[in-house]
């Protein structure tokens, strides 16, 4: 055991104003260097790709001629995917979160579910692709269809929806629940009329986070059979499909300058869709937060 003076001396260390100043500058660099890299990345892609984007690029079909190719089928495939993914994952995720927060706080089942969700959040996306291949494509016989892709992505983003919704439910004060229960409301009515309406901003933020994740995923789609350069948009849930990231992957993996330009342009479209989604999330959150109780 050291004496307190030894501890104090140990803590004082060799203090130099310069050591600390240098440290702060190095630490500041550690924050700004990654941000600079992000700016470099996006700037580069925009310079490469922005001039390639025009109406024909958005509405055109893939083509062997790089300068004629478009992304319409891939874009529509992605929109189908994220819509179906949201429709599947949102109710499931919100119901799970409500069960864990409002009903089963202390039950054994809730404890097991909690561990399962924590684990699922860390499973690599490619493993979800293998699950989708085994369960939806093969076992359920859905084949390489847009619904099989959407189900796979829905399972992938489920932990995101659950965690965001739980976070939102936790911010509702218990006094409000107690007030509703004291007025004679049942637990479900309390949840439906009091707790959920107040949690909408948080749930919406989670939903948009989930969709943003789903729209950029590539690896699981390769496994469940999305088509790399598809020539038509999906016309139903059982239709073959492409996706924007699949098209980018296809164009990137060919060592051809014009195709790489197309890939950059498609990335610009993808990033713009992501930015739009996130601005909607911020707008919704602000709109609802103004009405906070």
């Amino acid at each position, binding site marked *: 055991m050291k004496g307190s003076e030894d501890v104090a001396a140990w803590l*004082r260390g060799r*203090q130099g104003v310069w050591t600390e100043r240098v440290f702060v500058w190095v630490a500041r660099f550690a924050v700004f260097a*990654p*941000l600079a890299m992000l700016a470099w990345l996006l700037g580069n892609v925009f310079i490469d790709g922005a001039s390639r984007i025009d109406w024909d690029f958005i509405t055109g079909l893939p083509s062997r001629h790089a300068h004629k190719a478009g992304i319409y089928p891939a874009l529509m495939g992605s929109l189908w995917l994220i819509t179906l993914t949201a429709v599947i994952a949102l*109710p499931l995720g919100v119901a799970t979160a409500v069960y864990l927060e409002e009903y*089963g706080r202390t039950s054994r089942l809730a404890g*097991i579910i909690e561990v399962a969700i924590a684990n699922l959040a860390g499973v690599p996306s490619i493993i979800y692709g293998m699950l989708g291949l085994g369960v939806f494509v093969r076992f359920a016989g859905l084949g390489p269809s847009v619904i099989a892709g959407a189900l796979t992505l829905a399972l992938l983003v*489920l932990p995101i929806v659950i965690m965001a919704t739980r976070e939102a439910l936790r911010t509702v004060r218990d006094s409000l629940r107690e007030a509703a229960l004291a007025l004679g409301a049942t*637990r479900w009515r309390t949840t439906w*009329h009091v707790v959920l309406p107040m949690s909408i901003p948080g749930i919406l933020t989670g939903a948009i986070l989930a969709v943003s994740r789903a729209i950029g995923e590539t690896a699981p789609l390769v496994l469940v059979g999305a088509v790399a350069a598809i020539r038509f948009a999906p016309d139903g849930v059982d239709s073959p499909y492409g996706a924007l990231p699949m098209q980018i992957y296809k164009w990137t993996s060919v060592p051809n300058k014009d195709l790489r330009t197309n890939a950059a342009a498609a990335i610009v479209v993808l990033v713009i869709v992501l930015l739009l989604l996130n601005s909607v999330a911020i707008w919704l959150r602000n709109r609802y937060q103004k009405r906070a109780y």
Partner: protein
Amino acid sequence: MPKAAPGSWTRQRSSSIGERAVELGLAGCSLVSIFVTIGIVVVLVHEAGVFFADVPLGDFFGGTTWTPQFDPAHYGVWPLVAGTLLTSGIAMLVALPFGLLAAIYLSEYAAPRTRRMLKPALELLAGIPTIVYGFFALTVVTPALKNVFPELGIFNALSPGIVMGVMIIPMISSLSEDAIYAVPDSLREAAYGLGSGKLPAIIRVIVPSAWSGIAASITLAISRAIGETMILAIAAGQSTEMRLDPREQTETMTGYIVRIAKGDVPTGTVSYNSIFAVGLLLFTMTLVMNVISYRLSRKLRARNRT
């Protein structure tokens, strides 16, 4: 909200059967998470079982030659594991110092306003789709690195490793920052009271007491790096030779799975089935990391509550 007088819905007649049905329905939905976990294990074990009926376990775990498409085919998984460890190692060499320093800066030095702006900005890095990072690694970072290392190949481990490191910086910085920020001020004050300066207090008191949270973020980042796919599938190459040279091309476990699934190999063959064996190994590796991280972060939460 309906127009009815406030509180009227609380007095509607309610059946306990209806309440019970809702609770059961919600519990049923939440079971999906358990089924997914079980489903992953069942699919991987079942399909890997098909593969291991043809290839002995000893060859898979003992061999150092991975040549599924040659004749005779060899299925020694170590070259793929080496590729994964090499690229993940490079990524951690980037992410660890940057992530930790950023966490310390944001928690201890940045003004509250700066912190509120910079933390979400850093988290943007984790929101960019990995396919975009892959494109960036192949078309921008590799050519740039070639100016420094002229012998660098078009495909190599270094460039995707670095880019992947940048991508996982926010995983370390955000979670570590949470842990460092949560260290009670009484500890800081006690250190200052004993005559410590700010930097020694950070290094000797604050960071050590946030250690379980920091370690949890690091294990989570390693797990993320092991499972990352598209950056490597695009920029790392396809060589399955056993080597640890970051300048050469390499293939990771994830990269191999994508290449085979993309249609390089017809389904139903032994080499196609090998992706499930590789997937099972990958899942096990990330699971171990995730469990360690989960334990560490629970330890942190338990301590903070007291």
